[in-house]
């Protein structure tokens, strides 16, 4: 296909942008990575991240394929509720703010969310939690890799596999060189690009296609999208909120940030990050409502955002869209690579296999983990097995089961490990059952209800009291 067939960019321009973008980020990652001397520097940026960088990384990491591709997808599918409902995922960051402050206070020298589960709840709960974390991390990594491929295909007609491979090589490259320091610094720049870019796109869209004409077209030919009592959208709303809460509460992406932020920065940073994030899905989702008015009916619903923006803004606009979405994807992919490799290095390799490993050895292993995760993600992305929305909703059954065990584990002494393990295990199993038997819109909701019920029973029956000091274990590491 060429531009005459409807693509905003030629394949060669799309490829050139990817190469330029990739070289710039990898060089920046290498430059920042020179300051990393220890594993703690690499994994937690020296635990010294200030407020501006902290708020920017919280916001930018949460702006991902979810907000730039899936929010328009859900708006295209579920209408106004899809757009508004998606913005409620900001509640995840906002409600994590007090948890982050608590995490920093309870575990000033902690490394990962896995550390907390192991020390607070014991081995059994840790096994369940690690299984959930791995499934979720790969679900998200694969969705991000896929989103890179979909983006390039939608804008330039370039083969899906080329875009997907490119974004993985770029993110693995600069995370490998720079660690969390590079991830947070690039997130700051990417956050600025995302905010400016999204505002520009919305401005041009309203200027080109009036709000009245969009409303009139949708009301005439796609009336369900404006129905405030749209059944599927109502069912989706709280499922999406619990999915977002589960994602943030359990994931080491957010725990590693809480632990890396300086002093009492965590609470304010997550709160501001959430508030900054809140309007972004509204803007990106609104773009999808203009699709019918512009005569755009995408092959796949997750392609609607970039296609509309490229149609309205032309070639220059397509370049802007490309940079914004690529920044959004990169800001999440790098964070996830860093956080998951920390989990593998710290929780599995160091704590289970090589407790005597030296700091230099762990640093080296952490880099190998990033590389390995990148290769595995690439292999899983090769067959484009599902739409982004479907892939993400599947993971909802897993992560929503962790919400109550995490909250109660951080604030109460009474919930024992076996009850927490049962809550996560049965929450996930019944959430998945709901996903397959009823539909995607109940997976996270069922999972969270079951988990909350089991946690409630655990609190009622248990008389044991956890000692908070047990969360600070002595390091066995050799220098």
């Amino acid at each position, binding site marked *: 296909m060429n531009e005459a067939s409807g693509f905003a960019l030629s394949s060669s321009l799309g490829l050139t942008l990817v190469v330029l973008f990739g070289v710039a980020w990898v060089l920046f990652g290498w430059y920042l990575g020179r300051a990393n001397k220890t594993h703690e520097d690499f994994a937690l940026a020296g635990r010294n991240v200030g407020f501006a960088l902290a708020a920017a990384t919280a916001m930018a990491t949460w702006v991902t394929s979810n907000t730039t591709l899936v929010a328009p997808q859900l708006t295209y599918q579920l209408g106004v509720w899809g757009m508004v409902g998606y913005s409620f995922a900001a509640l995840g960051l906002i409600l994590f703010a007090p948890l982050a402050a608590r995490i920093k206070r309870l575990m000033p020298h902690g490394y990962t969310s896995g550390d907390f589960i192991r020390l607070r709840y014991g081995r059994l709960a840790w096994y369940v939690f690690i299984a959930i974390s791995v499934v979720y991390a790969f679900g998200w990594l694969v969705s991000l890799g896929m989103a890179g491929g979909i983006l390039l295909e939608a804008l330039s007609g370039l083969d899906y596999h080329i875009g997907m491979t490119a974004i993985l090589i770029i993110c693995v490259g600069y995370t490998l060189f720079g660690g969390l320091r590079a991830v947070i610094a690039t997130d700051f720049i990417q956050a600025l690009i995302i905010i400016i870019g999204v505002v520009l796109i919305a401005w041009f869209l309203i200027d080109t296609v009036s709000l009245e004409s969009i409303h009139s077209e949708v009301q005439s030919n796609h009336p369900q999208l404006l129905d405030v009592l749209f059944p599927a959208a109502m*069912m989706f709303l709280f*499922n999406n909120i619990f999915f977002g809460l589960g994602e943030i509460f359990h994931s080491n992406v957010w725990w590693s940030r809480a632990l890396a932020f300086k002093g009492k920065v965590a609470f304010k940073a997550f709160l501001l990050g959430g508030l900054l994030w809140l309007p972004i899905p509204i803007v990106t989702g609104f773009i999808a409502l203009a699709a019918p008015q512009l005569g755009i009916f995408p092959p796949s619903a997750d392609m609607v955002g970039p296609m509309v923006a490229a149609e309205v803004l032309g070639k220059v606009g397509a370049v802007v869209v490309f940079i914004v979405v690529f920044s959004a994807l990169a800001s999440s992919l790098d964070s996830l690579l860093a956080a998951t490799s920390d989990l593998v290095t710290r929780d599995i390799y160091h704590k289970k296999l090589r407790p005597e490993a030296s700091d230099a050895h762990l640093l080296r292993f952490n880099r190998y983990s990033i590389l390995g995760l990148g290769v595995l993600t690439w292999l899983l992305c090769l067959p484009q097995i599902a739409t982004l929305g479907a892939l993400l909703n599947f993971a909802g059954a897993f992560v929503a089961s962790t919400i109550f065990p995490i909250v109660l584990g951080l604030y109460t002494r009474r919930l024992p490990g076996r009850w927490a393990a049962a809550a996560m295990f049965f929450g996930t199993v019944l959430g998945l059952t709901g996903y397959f038997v009823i539909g995607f819109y109940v997976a996270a909701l069922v999972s969270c209800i079951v988990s909350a019920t089991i946690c409630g029973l655990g609190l009622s029956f248990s008389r044991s009291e956890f000692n908070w000091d047990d969360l600070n274990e002595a390091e066995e590491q050799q220098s």
Partner: protein
Amino acid sequence: MPKTSGGSSYSFIHIALLLLITLLARPALAYNDSYQLSGPDAPSREGYFTLSITPAPQQQLVLQQSQSATFDTIDAEFRWFGDFEQITLTGFTDGEYFFRLQPAADAAEASSNVVKVTVNHYPRWQAYSLFFIGLALFILLVASLLILRRRV
């Protein structure tokens, strides 16, 4: 009369060959004019669905929508994007919808079979139930957070 009979069979073979040659000699483009359109097997519960065609389009196509199988009135038309083999349509209320393809330049002749899609949204009671269960659980979570945070 065997000769005549033989001549008759030769004529039949000639006619058959001629037909075969004519059939095979149709320009390649003529095959591309005919597309196989397919839709979802089950009714759509969310008001959106995907239609597919084979082979991939070689020309600009328009998808026509009607509420009758004979397309007496065309309710809407959708431009097929590029050479993709799928299109996703959205925002449909309960009902039965019929679709067919036409070349953008020639609106007189259909280029595909007709596909019927049924939209049947989830019942309201199911939507309200899940909504209020979700709301109650969310209130429980926020209340727990606020209460527990004050206690520590």
